């Protein structure tokens, strides 16, 4: 028996011995871990591209328009429930309000991750490293600009915070955030190259000009007119921030063949097929978008386009005829908006007439999934988009016209609008847009407007020039006119004897000028209290 036992033990030992243990140090074959990633010389560029990709959202960019009086969001879910926000029926749980907050803090973490780890990257040229860091700091400042604009006081996070810290960190006063943004922009302006100093392959990267222009915009939102003027003059008068000029064709600015044109200062870059957005399906004619039209221009926007003679449609002598409302109008109207009877070139190349009057077919305003105002947007329509309307068209965040318009506005607010400023700004912009009537172009015709009148003119010019470019919502809030333009009925096209009532908006100035800090964050971090006024 003992022999057998011995045999058994030998056999058992043999069995266990021959059984190789599986290795337990396993990692994915197609991803890096933090031990390997930063050892790669390409790591910094790759992490930075992630920062670029998360700088701003195309959905926010377009649906911002329906937060304003420029457009209607007809769906209750599209754009992160922008319709509810425009109607004043929202809170800290509303998709966009909650989402925008974490979107920007996610972007900020991406930047902080790069800035914290870039020293580990081997063989990175010192100059390139400085530039990468400046690009990331610009993007971080951009996120803070957005956060501050929507939420006021926000946490200032300059490092990758720990999980525990995120439950304790409080909000930094808006004034400090503002200073931080301005300081950061100054710092990176000094480091970043000019537009023409980048190689062809780097077109679309953040430039010295972009940093300066963003600073001008931040100051504009603060009504710090003198400082706005100073920066804009450097753009207009010399090449301090690079050479920019108006692109000769207004409609062409937004076409794929003219990407990176002479007036683009900062944009979100897309690549056909490989990095696309599919936003145009929401606002081009239903038959081309082939999805429920999520967003449509308002009658109020259409009405704000002046006549070719520069007069508002309700001004005496404008020549406006309500039965032929689109004749003799600001050429930018047709370039921006599609109305009943507009001509349209489909993706296949057919030229068709879009009909939106009731009973005229699939694009008609009485079709529940077509535009609810009877208008569609034409700006940013990309004919080269694929069958599902995925487009590689870049979306412009700041263009040179904005420098001119900021300059015009600041000068006006300082009471310094004169023929010289006018000619450099409004006149040049109108000429480029296709105005030819001297009545619209010559300052003399407007000299008597007075400051308030000129302010209104500049504001209207800004609205029409930048419709669908994510500007209006910020403008009506900084001008503090939201309670006027965002209260009451938003209209659609004229049907019969009246204009369609497309939506009822509510804006409570005691509460709606700042969004609430998202409910989920408040629930987890009481140091974020008190919430914004009224919330």
């Amino acid at each position, binding site marked *: 028996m003992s022999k057998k*036992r011995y045999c*058994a033990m030998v*056999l*058992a030992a043999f069995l*266990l011995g021959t*059984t*190789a243990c*599986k290795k*337990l*140090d*396993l*990692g*994915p074959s*197609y*991803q*890096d871990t*933090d031990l390997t*990633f930063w050892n790669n010389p390409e790591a910094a*560029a*790759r*992490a930075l*591209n*992630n920062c*670029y*990709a998360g700088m701003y959202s195309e959905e926010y960019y377009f649906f911002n328009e329906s937060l304003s009086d420029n457009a209607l969001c007809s769906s*209750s879910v599209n754009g992160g429930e922008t319709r509810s926000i425009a*109607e*004043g*029926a929202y*809170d800290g*749980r509303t998709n966009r309000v*909650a989402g925008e907050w974490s979107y920007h803090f*996610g972007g*900020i*973490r991406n930047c902080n991750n790069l800035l914290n780890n870039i020293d580990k990257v081997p063989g990175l040229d010192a100059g390139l490293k400085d530039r990468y860091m400046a690009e990331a700091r610009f993007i971080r400042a951009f996120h803070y600009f957005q956060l501050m604009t929507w939420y006021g006081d*926000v946490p200032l*996070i300059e490092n990758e915070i720990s999980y525990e810290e995120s439950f304790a960190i409080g909000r930094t006063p808006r004034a400090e955030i503002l200073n931080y943004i301005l300081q950061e922009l100054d710092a990176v302006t000094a480091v970043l190259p000019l537009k023409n100093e980048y190689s062809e*392959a*780097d077109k679309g990267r953040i430039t010295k000009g972009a940093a300066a222009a963003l600073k001008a915009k931040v100051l504009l939102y603060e009504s710090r007119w003198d400082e706005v003027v100073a920066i804009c003059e450097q753009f207009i008068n010399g090449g301090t921030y690079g050479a920019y000029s108006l692109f000769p064709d207004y409609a062409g600015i937004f076409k794929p063949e003219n*990407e990176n044109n002479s007036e683009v200062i900062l944009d979100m*870059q897309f*690549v056909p*097929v*490989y*990095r696309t957005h599919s936003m145009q399906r929401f606002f081009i004619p*239903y038959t*081309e978008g*082939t*999805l429920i039209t999520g967003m449509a221009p308002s009658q109020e926007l259409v009405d704000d386009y002046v006549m070719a003679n520069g007069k508002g449609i309700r001004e005496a002598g404008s020549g406006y005829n309500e039965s032929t409302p689109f004749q003799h109008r600001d050429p930018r109207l047709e370039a921006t908006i599609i109305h009943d009877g507009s001509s349209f070139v489909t993706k296949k190349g057919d030229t068709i007439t879009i009909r939106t009057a009731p009973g005229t077919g*699939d694009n008609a305003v009485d079709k529940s*999934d077509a535009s609810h105002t009877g208008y569609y947007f034409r700006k940013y329509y990309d004919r080269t988009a694929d*069958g*599902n309307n995925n487009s590689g068209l870049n979306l412009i965040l700041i263009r040179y016209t904005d420098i001119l318009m900021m300059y015009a506005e600041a000068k006006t607010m300082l009471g310094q609008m004169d023929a010289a400023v006018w000619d450099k700004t409004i006149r040049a912009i109108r000429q480029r847009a296709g105005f030819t009537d001297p009545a619209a172009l010559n300052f003399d015709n407007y000299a008597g407007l007075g400051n308030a009148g000129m302010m209104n003119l500049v504001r209207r010019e800004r609205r029409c020039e930048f419709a669908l470019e994510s500007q209006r919502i910020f403008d009506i809030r900084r001008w503090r006119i939201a309670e006027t333009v965002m209260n009451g009925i938003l209209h659609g096209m004229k049907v019969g004897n009246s204009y369609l009532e497309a939506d009822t908006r*509510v804006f409570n100035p005691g509460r709606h000028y700042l969004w609430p800090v*998202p*409910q*989920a*964050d408040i*629930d*987890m971090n009481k140091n974020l209290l008190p919430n914004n006024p009224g919330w």
Partner: protein
Amino acid sequence: MQANCPAITKMLTYRNKCPLLLVLFLMMMAHNLFAQEQRTITGRITDAATQQPIPGVSVSLKGSGIGTASAGDGTFTLKIPAGKDQMLTFSSLGYASRELPLTASNQVSISLQASSSTLADVVVVGYGTQKRTSLTGAVSVVSAKELDGKPVTSAVQALQGAAPNLIIQQNVTEPGAAASINVRGVSTVNNTSPLILVDGVPGSLDLINPKDIESISVLKDAASSAIYGSRAANGVILVTTRKGKLNKVPRVTYSGFAGWQQPTFLVSPLSGVDYMQLKNEALVNSGQSAQFSPEQIRRQGEKGSEKWWMDEVMKPAALQHNHNLGVTGGIGKLAYLVSGGYLDQNSLYRGPGYGYQRYNFRTNLSTQLGKLKLAGNFAYARQDIREHAYYSDWLVSTAIRIPRIYPIKDSAGNYFLAPTASNNPLAQLEKGGLRKYSNGSYNYMASAEYALTSHLSAKLVYGADIRDNNMDEFRKSIDYTPYSGSDNQSARTVNHARSVQDNFQALLNYEQTFGKVHHVKALLGYATEGWKNEYRQKRQINVDNETGDSTAGTSTLTGFNDTYDTRVDRWALNSVFGRLNYSYSDKYYFEFNFRYDESSRFAKGNRGAFFPSFSAAWRITDEPFMAGVKERIGDLKLRGSWGQLGNQQILSNYGYLNIYTTVNNMYGFNNLPQPGASFAVGNPIITWESASSSNIGFDLSLLDNRLTISYDYFHKITNDILLQLTAPGLYGATPAYQNAGRVKNQGFEVAVNYRMKTGEFHHTFGANLADNLNEIVDFRGRTYLQEGDVTYINKEGFPISSYYGLQADGFYQNLDDIKNSPKPTFVNQVKPGDIKYVDRNQDGVIDNNDRFVMGNPFPRYTFGFNYAVNWKGFDASIFIQGVGKRNVYLRGEGVEAFHDNWDNVYAQHIDRWTPNNPDAAYPRLTIGTESVNNEANSTFWLFNAAYARLKNVQLGYTLPASLTGKVNIEKCRIYLTGQNLLTVTGMNVGLDPEVTEFNNSLNLNQLSSASSGRIYPVQKVWAVGLDINF
């Protein structure tokens, strides 16, 4: 010499004490080895209760590999070498095995007890078997009999309701879709799938041919599953396949059924006219103008309603059939089973031949070569699924919401595009292309067991489960001319995945009885297991719209999840485990199990964990002082267990590492794609979840085993739950997993079985009832809210993923009512007929602070009931299964009229609030933003999903043996069977009460849209079946 055998047997028991006898024994052994004498045993086997012959009983000479099986008349003939101390074993499915010592007589007559309700049968447990009498843990066994005759497409479906607290749910019901399985509820927010082993090797209940299953053991408590340690926290399901039998003549069995599936639509659409009137009412209620003029409505009335689109995309019935052929026999000492199965389930969708086919093939071989026992199982399963190239979610959501004023095709035969839809589901089915899956699965198991001594054996097992999954999705561009629709881009995705899960085990088994009463069993084992998945994919757009091949305009998408070369993921486990059983006098039982596991899913230092368990049982009625009770009442066994179990199934295989993912087109400069890397935060200190589980129970057997009752109560605390705890948005990333939670789960199971006979009728009753209730005990004081169409909450003191919202309190009846009620802050105004909410915090307004935990989405009081009766050749059975308590939150177009500005409105909305109908079931009809108040998350949309379903009915007839025997047919049964025939539920809003938005866990990241009605309907099946053995 034979005559001496009993005496020798007796003496042998004392051989260790008596060297002389040992010498004698060895001499006899030697004699046996050289003796070539043969003897032929003949006999007859009958059912102890019915005295009827039992065919197909496996008869073998113990320890020799020599055997046969009984014929149709219960007789057998077995040639064996003459020998001493020989034992015949008799075993058959559904009967308790028996061993019979051979005497001088060559004639044997034996009767077997039906085992469905005895305590004597053998139960498969981890790495071995145990007699049911000696079980100390909570194990439910489902026998092949309970799977038979159900017209289901997988073993999982047949298991629903078959064992208490084995909870089967489905959130996808399309052909070929897998169901989710749960044992004893949820005790973690992570994966709660049990470990499923087929003959000891990881396998799948969806892929196995149900006809190959001999028995299924569900190991529920720590005592029975702790030997599987790290992966046992969610229970273990052991599937044992049928074995080969050493029949002289190959025995062939055929079984099959063919039948029709029918969709069970529960939503009823309105007539065209009703829709128009309700739409107008909703628009006007919402401050908009009516859409339809009285003239249009009148004309619609004259024309009549169009067919409902759901009826247009679904066939009224679709064929389903299944055939299985099995052969068992022996070649020399090799016992074999070869079986094949074929299942063909046509889809209810119209379109080119959609459906599911499965082919199963299995060979199980075993042989006994002296002390060496070899076994090898090989199973192959192939699944072919042909389905439309879209998602059923979208397809059904369109089909159910289009009102019956629009035809699916216009008068010219073009696919019609209705308002609120830019595609046509019938076009998508008929012209939209195809998604094909062809999946192969290979399941191997090979084992060698060697008897080192008569008490000690060593066993090696190697098993592998290999899956080859291929998908080819070709979505065609659809031309909707003269309408303008979407779906106008062709796309093709082809992917391939090959996973190998292999498993090596080395086991030592020891078994010895000391002094007649001390029975000891021990097991020591080592196992190493790994999983490796290699996969690749290619995704292209603008492919040739006819062939799907690349063509001039084709682009290959290069996003991270679009096109990639082979990627590899792995995990691995190394383990040592053991078990010690001790029983005294078959009265007291003790068991100890342990397992030590090391897992690759954690960082060095946190990898290993030790999982022990203890259990004991006491057959109290075997005590002398209970003899009277045992005689008069029956047999009672008390059981208790405690143990620790682990869980390492989290979503990420590498959660302890920060992961950087590089994609080629993260961004672009100047129209050139740029690679970029995003990162996911890891947590280096994560480790196992561990569950401490206690169980007490009893098994009671009464009335001469005709009535058995089994009861278990369990209490389980899961610690260190791996949570991706939520973080404030300002954290800026998805938080890493951390061991942070603690969940309590408790419940009970009762199973009652009863057999009786009235005249010629044999009845069997079986009923089971189970409950489980989980509660988050510790969540680091945090509350996790997932806001959305449905708001879920994870909060201490409440079940995992509970529903959260406002408490509805009827409707506002008039303006005074509104004026006197707290005002909701999330809408500008409310109107009479809107839902009123309770101001739970009494601050005068209705807002987020009035929300409360309103429901638990996990089923409680699950039950099953079956009754079967035999009368002569006839048999009938019914099987009812259901859930006693569950909340389900329904949302979206499934229940809300005019959801999202759409056109959906159903019969249940007729009873809406109007000033003339103040006691309505539904609030006033609204559309768009006007619906914000009523669509808020509240108890109004929370439904009681309790139900009882007539899951299966069978009516069968077995032809008399006297008749079939003449043509050498042992058994021939034909039957009619029906599945899902009737459902009783209080949830009368048109969705199936069985439907859940959750998959196999209560994981909020993987919710389906089933609770909005976007689901392929549950099928009712009628079938005829045939079983023949010859």
